[in-house]
């Protein structure tokens, strides 16, 4: 039963991924569709930033991730390289947690 569920769920997840790739190109050439698709990606990634910074998946949570993201934002505003932005956020959260912040 577990194997069957694993295979069925994986097939569903793959089919969803494939459907996105099979959308006919002439639909996407329509400016309104292209614009909307670009905004959907911005919305999905922005929402992920929000959810990964301020929730535990079920409730809103304030912890070391928020100051870490603020540090990342400052680093981005200063045009720091990508690796520096990510490392600064990890370091901030790691240090704050070592100091006892949740």
């Amino acid at each position, binding site marked *: *039963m577990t194997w069957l569920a694993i295979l069925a769920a994986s097939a569903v997840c793959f089919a969803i991924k494939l459907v996105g790739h*099979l959308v006919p190109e002439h639909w996407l050439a329509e400016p*309104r569709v292209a614009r909307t698709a670009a*905004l959907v990606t911005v919305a999905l990634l922005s929402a992920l930033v*929000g959810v990964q910074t301020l929730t535990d998946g079920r409730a809103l949570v304030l912890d070391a991730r928020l100051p870490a993201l603020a540090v990342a934002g400052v680093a981005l505003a200063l045009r720091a390289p990508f690796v520096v*932005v990510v490392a600064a956020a990890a370091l901030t*959260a790691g240090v704050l947690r070592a100091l006892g912040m949740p």
Partner: protein
Amino acid sequence: MTTDDRRAEVRAAIRQAVSVSVATGLYGVSFGALAVAAGLDLPQTMALSLLMFSGGSQFAFIGVVGTGGAFGAAVATAGLLGVRNGLYGVQVAPLLGARGLRRTVAAQLTIDESTAVGTAHADPQAARAGFWWTGVGVFVLWNAFTVVGALLGDALGDPRRYGLDAAAAAAFLALVWPRLATGPARVVAAVAVVVALAVTPLAPAGIPVLAAAAVAIVLGWRTPAREART
């Protein structure tokens, strides 16, 4: 753009891909450990990372199975959390121009991280390099660390201790950053965050992010083209 500029942008995309792959791949340890704790054996845990290959869907699947959830609930939850990958496919397919087997592989590698790195670059060559390097990099490391996690259990400790959860959020912020240059994109980003946070306590995992996408569809469809150029 000169040839040197292009090469520099491709290199930048590859560097991003490597950092994202390492940070995300390490999370595979958590997944492996939690899957075994939820009652799956090693081959089952490995099969999920290889075949399902979508972090959100995988964690949700073992969450449902671990709490004795029904077959249908496990499949539906995993599928629901995978819906955004379908939306990503619409955005990355024109960048990749892949056909046949290559398109099938691209589809399996279409996840948050590969889409974020790919779409962060305006130059098509850099966008393709970003997508493929991230997709393959995360796939290899995610699967390798899934095995490590399943075998070692949680001996390595919580990845939160090393701030990896904040690193993931910061990586997505850095990747969406260049796309926030226009007014409409900023409005959509702000509304998306507010909607996702507001829906979080009300709906199961995965829904808040999709609710934010729904808002973007409505705003994108209704905004006049002149203002919404991104």
